[in-house]
């Protein structure tokens, strides 16, 4: 199993699941706890979903770049879209007041809370996430 992977996929939700399932299978083969796998699963798919829907505007002609690196201690996932980026600070807190009833805006929030380290680059077009397999 390669420790590093770098691919580019079309803007397609079925491919999203395929790539996500591939990463989860690799983690299951590494004796990683179910809780950590679940967090990575959600974090990775939310990043892909954000890239495809919000970043690439659901445009089937656009692509999403994905890089992963897995060691015995952690996984790093990088997801990059072809959109215009976004201002992280402008996103409303989905857990406050009437935002609780909104039907969008939870993806970035979930990533922040489920992954150990999250960094947005290229004006928000690229997210770098890290999850440790043991509690820090």
């Amino acid at each position, binding site marked *: 199993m390669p420790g590093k992977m770098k691919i580019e996929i079309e803007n397609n*939700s079925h491919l999203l699941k395929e790539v996500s399932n591939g990463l989860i299978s690799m983690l299951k083969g590494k004796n990683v706890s179910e*809780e950590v796998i679940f967090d990575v699963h*959600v974090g990775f*798919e939310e990043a892909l*979903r954000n890239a495809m829907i919000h970043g690439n505007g659901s445009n089937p002609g656009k692509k999403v770049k994905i890089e992963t690196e897995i060691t015995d201690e952690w996984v790093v996932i990088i997801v990059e879209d072809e959109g215009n980026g976004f201002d992280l600070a402008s996103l409303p807190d989905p857990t406050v007041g009437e935002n*609780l009833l909104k039907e*969008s805006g939870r993806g970035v929030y979930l990533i922040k809370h489920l992954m150990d380290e999250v960094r947005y680059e290229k004006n928000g077009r690229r997210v770098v996430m890290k999850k440790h397999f043991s509690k820090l």
Partner: protein
Amino acid sequence: MQICMEDKDGIVVCRLRSDVDINSSPDVRNYFERLTRDKKEKILIDFKDVDYVDSSGLATFVEIFKNMRTYGGKLKLMNLSNKVRGLFEITKLDKLFEIAAQEADALSSF
């Protein structure tokens, strides 16, 4: 997405048979839209077979809640795994929904 429905003394119990994610959410949304269009007053959603929910799934349940609220309907959720329940807690949606641990508790508390 397969959903099994049964009526228990006026409470519509809907048992989700798989995960609620970006691919299955539209089906789940359509299914419950039909129920809320018929103004079903009491709906209980069973998560026993649900291992994974993403933000589109969470949004779907918020939409069902909002639709039911317009006519005074009552929505409850039950049998959430610890991991799925954790997502409701992180996003504070556990404050919005009534979440029961067991079916008997859910049915008796409507």
